[in-house]
C-alpha cells in the first residue's frame, strides 16, 4: 500500500492543506485590547487550584470566535469578550487595572474568591458595564466614586469584603442602578440618601444592603 500510495498521498496532503487553509480563514481575528486585558488579569491573579487551565497566552490572543468562547469563564459576542465570570475558583491576588481594556465588557463577576487589594479605579473606563459583582472576596480600600462613570451599571454587588471608607454618594446618580449591596464590609460614614431615598421612581436600595458595617450610620 505504501508503494502505490505515493502519488495519492501527495494529492491527499494537498487536499488536506487546502482544507486547513480554509479552516484557518474561518477564525476571526482577535481584539488587541481584549488580549491585553486578559493577559494582565491573568498576571495579577493567582490560581492555586489550577482552575483556569486554558488561561494561556495562546488563548488570550484568540479568546473568541464570533459567539464561541474558547476561554474558561468568558462569554463572547461578535468576537469580543462581553462577560467574565470567574466565581468560586479560590482565586488569589488582585484585580488588574488593565481589566479596563476589555472595553466591551457588560458583566464582570469575580465573586466568591480570595482576591485582595483595591477595586481599581480604572474600572470606570468600562463604559458598557451593566453588572459588577466582586462580592465575597478580601478586597480592601475604598469604593471608587469613579464607578459613577459606568453610567449603565444596573448591579453593584460588593458584599463580604474588607472595604473601608465612605460609600460615595455619587453612586446615587446611577439612574439604572437597581441592585446595590455593600453589606459586611468595614465601611464608615453616612449612608447616602441618594441611594436610600432616591428621587422619582428610581428603585430604592434596602437597608439590608448596608448591614454588617458597624461604622455606617444614617437613614435606611
Amino acid at each position: 500500500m505504501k508503494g502505490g500510495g505515493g502519488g495519492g498521498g501527495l494529492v491527499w496532503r494537498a487536499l488536506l492543506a487546502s482544507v486547513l487553509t480554509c479552516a484557518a480563514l474561518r477564525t476571526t481575528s482577535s481584539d488587541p485590547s481584549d488580549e491585553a486585558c486578559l493577559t494582565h488579569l491573568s498576571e495579577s491573579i493567582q490560581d492555586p487550584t489550577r482552575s483556569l487551565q486554558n488561561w494561556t497566552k495562546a488563548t488570550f490572543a484568540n479568546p473568541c470566535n464570533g459567539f464561541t468562547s474558547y476561554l474558561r469563564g468568558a462569554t463572547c459576542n461578535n468576537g469580543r469578550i462581553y462577560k467574565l465570570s470567574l466565581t468560586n475558583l479560590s482565586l488569589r491576588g488582585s484585580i488588574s487595572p488593565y481589566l479596563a481594556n476589555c472595553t466591551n465588557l457588560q458583566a464582570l463577576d469575580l465573586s466568591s474568591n480570595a482576591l485582595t487589594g483595591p477595586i481599581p479605579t480604572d474600572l470606570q473606563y468600562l463604559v458598557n458595564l451593566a453588572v459588577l459583582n466582586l462580592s465575597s472576596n478580601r478586597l480592601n480600600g475604598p469604593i471608587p466614586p469613579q464607578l459613577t462613570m459606568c453610567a449603565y451599571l444596573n448591579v453593584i454587588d460588593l458584599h463580604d469584603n474588607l472595604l473601608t471608607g465612605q460609600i460615595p454618594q455619587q453612586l446615587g446618580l446611577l439612574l439604572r442602578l437597581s441592585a446595590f449591596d455593600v453589606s459586611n464590609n468595614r465601611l464608615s460614614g453616612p449612608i447616602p440618601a441618594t441611594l436610600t431615598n432616591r428621587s422619582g421612581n428610581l428603585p430604592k436600595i434596602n437597608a439590608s444592603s448596608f448591614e454588617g458595617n458597624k461604622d455606617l450610620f444614617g437613614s435606611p
Partner: protein
Amino acid sequence: MLSGIPARNGNGGAADLGDLAFFLFVLDSRIWLPTKCLCEFRSLFVTVLVKIAFCADELNFPSEAVLGDALNALKSNLADPNNVLQSWDATLVNPCTWFHVSCNSENSVTRVDLGNANLTGTLVSQLGQLPNLQYLELYSNNISGKIPEELGNLANLVSLDLYTNNLSGPIPTTLGNLGKLRFLRLNNNSLSGTIPMTLTNVTSLQVLDLSNNVLTGDIPINGSFTMFTPISFSNNKLNNPPPSPPPPIPSTPSPSAGTTTGAIAGGVAAAAALFFAIPAIALAMWRRKKPQDHFFDVPAEEDPEVHLGQLKRFSLRELQVATDNFANKNILGRGGFGKVYRGRLADGSLVAVKRLKEERTQGGELQFQTEVEMISMAVHRNLLRLRGFCMTPTERVLVYPYMANGSVASCLRDRPESRPPLDWQIRKRISLGSARGLAYLHDHCDPKIIHRDVKAANILLDEEFEAVVGDFGLAKLMDYKDTHVTTAVRGTIGHIAPEYLSTGKSSEKTDVFGYGVMLLELITGQRAFDLARLANDDDVMLLDWVKGLLKDRRLETLVDSDLQGNYVDDEVEQLIQVALLCTQSTASERPKMSEVVRMLEGDGLAERWEEWQKEEMFRQDLNHTRHPNTHWIVDSTSHISPDELSGPR
C-alpha cells in the same frame, strides 16, 4: 416499495401515523405512488384518518402541513443561488427532514437555520405560522423588504437573527409580543422609523443589536432596555445622546445637590469635583480617540448553548465528575479514536464522552478548535450533534448526547434477549435516515465532511430508533498530528472502499461504499468481515457472499433470520440493489449519497439498476478469468495494523 416512508420523529402519535401510512402503502404495494402525489395523498389520508378516529393525532398532523406550507412560501419568495433549499421538497409529509430545518419530537418546526446562505428576496408573512419556532436564523444574506409584522405571533421565539441583510422599513411593534425572546439582532440593515417602545416589555431580552440602520427618534431606556448601552444602537439617526439617563458625572456638583446633601458631604464635594473632572475629561478624550466600533451588546446571563454553532466548552473537571473519573464501568465502547464513556452532566443529562487518543503534537489547539467547530456546524436530524468539547494540554474530549438505543451494530448483533430485534420498517427507516445524514455531510457542509468510516457501528439510534450518523469529522480531526507523514488509512475491514485502501485517497464515494456495506449488514444482520463464514466455505467478504446469493435468488438465506420472515421481498431486493450500486469497485460509478436518498424515496432506482445489470453482465464476460475483487481486500488489509482500523465505538 421504498418510497413515501413518512419521516417520523415524534413519539407516540406521529410515529403511529407513520406506521399506519406505511401500512397503507404496503397494503397496496402494487400501486406506485409517485412522490408528486403525496400531497394529495396526504390530505386524503388525513380524512381517512379522522374517520377511523385516530383522534389523538389530528392536531399534530394537519399542522405539519401548515408548517411545510409556511416554509414553502418562504422558499418561493427567495432566490437561492447556492441551492441550500434544494431539500425543501414540498411533497414530503412534513418539513422535518429538510436541511436547515429542525423539529421537536412532535414534528413541529423549532429552528430555521439559514445564516450565510447567500439568499436574496423577501421574507413572508407565513413565517408567523410556525407556532413552535424558537430560532429564526437568517443572518448574513441579501434579504430585502420588510420584517413581517406576523413574526410577532411566534410566541416561542427565542432568537431572531436577521442581521446583515438589506431589510428596510420599520421594526414591527408586534415584536414586543415575543415574550420569550432573548436575542434580537437586526443590526446592519436599512431599518427605519423609531424603536418600538413595546420592545421594552420583553423582559427576557438579553441581547439586542440594532446598530447600523437608519433608525430615528429616541432610544427607550426603561424596562428591558435598562441593560443596553450605546453599542446596541450605534450608527443610526437616533437622538443622541440617549435621552435623560444616564448622566455622566457632573464635572461640578450642581448647587442643588450641594444644598440637599451639604450637611453631610459639603467638604467632600469640592474635592470630588476635581476628582471627577479629570476622569471625565480623560474619558471624553479617550472616547474620541477610540473609533466607535460596532459591537454586539450583551447584558448578563446568556445561556452559552443557545446560539447555533455555539459549542459548550467543558472543563476537564466537569467531565471527570460526569464519568466518575473516566471509570472503566462507564466505557460504552472503544474505537480507533479512543474510548467512549457514558456520563451524566451536572444538569442531569446523559452524554457520551469521547476521550480522543493521545499522541498529538503541541500547538494544535487552534486547529482542534476550528475542526470541532466545523463538526458542530453540521446540524441535521440524522447526524450526531456535537454538544461540546474539552481541551487541555493533555486531553482532547468530545461530548455528544447519549443515544438511548446504541448503534445499529449493537442492535443487530449484541442485542440482549429482552429486546426485540429491529423490525423491517425500522431497518428501512435507518437506511433512509443514515443516507440523508451522509448526504448532508457531503453536500451541505462547507468544507464538505467525508466520514471515512461508515458502518453499522457508527450509525446510532435515538429513542425513536431514528438513525443518527456518528463519528463524522473525526478522521480529519485526528490527522492533524501527522499531516507531514503518510496519512494512515482509517476505516474498518470489509467497509473500506478499494480505491481508498490502495491510494489512501478518500472521497464522498468512499462513504458511499461504506454505506452500501452497512445496508448489507442491515439486511443480513451479519458482520461485514466475518471470519466465521470462512469456515463455512462462504466468501469472506459479505459483499461477495451477497452477490452470490442474489445470483442464485436465495433471498431467505440472505435476510437476517431475526426478522423471522417478516419482510417484503420486493423491498429487500430493492435495498440490496441500492447496496450493490453503492459498492461498485469503480468509485465514479457509485451513486452520490443524495442520489441514494432519492432512490430510497422511490425515484430512479429501477432505471439505474437495469443499467447496472447490463454493465455487470458485460463485465463478467470480460473479467471471467481474473477475480480482482476478492484478493485486493484481503491482501491490502493485511498490511494495516489493527490500530489503524477503528473498531466498534
